[in-house]
Structure formats: C-alpha cells, structure tokens
C-alpha cells in the first residue's frame, strides 16, 4: 500500500513536471521544473532500491546539470523571449511520431505485465564498487577519459569564441 502511494505520487510528479518542461513558455520556469522532474526520478530510484544511483542522481543531475542549465538560461535569455512562441509549426507531426513510438513502447511494457519483485531491496553500493573495479574496469577508465575530454572541450569552445570575436 505504502509502495503504491509512493510510486503513484512520484510518477505523477515526474510526468507533470516533465510536461511543464516541454510546454512552458518561460525557459527559466522550464529549467526549474527540470530540476523537480529529475528529483522525482531520483525518488523512483530510491523506491527501486537503487541507493547509490539515487545519491548519484541527486549529486549529478539535480545539483549539477539542472543548475548548469539554469545558469545557461540566465546567460542566454532575453526579455522579449517571453512573448514569442516556443513551439515550432510541426508539433502535430511530432505528436503523431510520439503516439506511434508510444504504441510500440507500451506493447513492450505490456510484455512484462505481472512481474513483481520477490525479495526486499538490498544495498548495492559495495557490489557496484566491486563491479566497477573488476569486470567494468576498462569502461570505468574510458569514462574518466571522456570526462577529461569534456572538460578540455568546454574550456576550448568558450575561450576561442571569446578571443576571435572583437
């Protein structure tokens, strides 16, 4: 019973704030709702028993990416954007694409109907650490290389643009 209440309230929070992200006209409001939606996904991770993923979601998404996007919105926006339409002309076609894709996705989801978890969730942080430094050692090192490349790329793009333009 408690699990159902938690699940439905978190699912409603995630989906409604995601809808607000894609439909609101003010981009600042959109980015704030993005933080709310990501926090709701973190709550769903917690209800799935993925404790380390919950913490990582809060640290990386809610307090990292959402704040970064909010900064970018405040740097790039103009006051006149509030009066402009934020949705392009092809939205009925996009809706059609989403309906077709959704039919396929729900067909797949219906295939897994009735599967319940048999055991209570157990903490998985220790097992994740062992897996990352065991079988997944090569992807673990590669992803650190990707983070270094992202860092250098971000610095490079911001710097060279600033010097070339007078």
């Amino acid at each position, binding site marked *: 019973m408690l699990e159902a209440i938690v699940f439905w309230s978190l699912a409603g929070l995630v989906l409604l704030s995601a809808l607000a992200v894609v439909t609101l006209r003010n981009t600042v409001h959109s980015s704030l709702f993005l933080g709310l939606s990501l926090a709701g996904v973190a709550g769903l991770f917690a209800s799935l028993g993925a404790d380390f993923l919950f913490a990582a979601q809060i640290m990386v998404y809610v307090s990292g*990416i959402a704040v970064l996007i909010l900064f970018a919105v405040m740097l790039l926006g103009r006051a006149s954007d509030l009066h402009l339409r934020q949705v392009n002309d092809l939205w009925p076609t996009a809706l059609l694409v989403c309906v077709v894709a959704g039919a396929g996705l729900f067909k*797949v989801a219906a295939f897994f109907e009735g599967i319940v978890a048999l055991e209570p969730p157990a903490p998985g942080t220790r097992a994740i650490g062992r897996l990352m430094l065991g079988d997944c050692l090569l992807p673990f090192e590669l992803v650190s290389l990707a983070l270094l490349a*992202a*860092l250098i790329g971000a610095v490079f793009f911001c710097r060279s643009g600033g010097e070339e333009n007078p």
Partner: protein
Amino acid sequence: MTLAHYLAVAALLFLVGLFGALTRRNIIGILMSIELMFNAANLNLAAFDRFLHPGGVAGQTLALFTITVAAAEVVVGLALLLAIYRGAGTVYVEDYNLLKG
C-alpha cells in the same frame, strides 16, 4: 508495483522528452528534453535490475555510466551553445543556418 508500471512511467517520460526535442524552438529547451530522455533510459535500467535480476547491480552500473556521459554531453553542449550564441545572437534553432550553402 510490477515491472510494467515502471516501464510505462519511463516510456511516458521518454515520449514527453521526445516531443519536447522535436517541437521546442529554444535550443536550451531541446537540451532539457534530451536530459529527460536520458532519465527515462536510466529508470528502465534500474527497474530491470530490480525485477529481473534481484541482487545484481549490472544495470545500475550501466546507468551510472549513462549519467556520466550525460554530464559530459551537457557540459560540452552548453559550451558550444554559448559559442554559437556569441556568433549568431539567437537561441532559436531555425536561425542557425551557418552551414547553408
């Protein structure tokens, strides 16, 4: 709660993100919609881990790698976006026609 419930929520979140990525005019809105789609994929990975492979953490580890790659993507994306905005002076994607012959 069954696995299908979590898959349905993840599918709806993915569709909302897809709709946003296809229809937003603002490029930051498109980036935000892409983040929503990443989160739907992560939710699927964690749900499969919990229901089909109890006690296993392979899906959660893959979701952690996805989170890392998404963070790198958004950092580079926002840096590129600031550089483009300096040149083009707009955030609307239909005005980005630098490559047009």
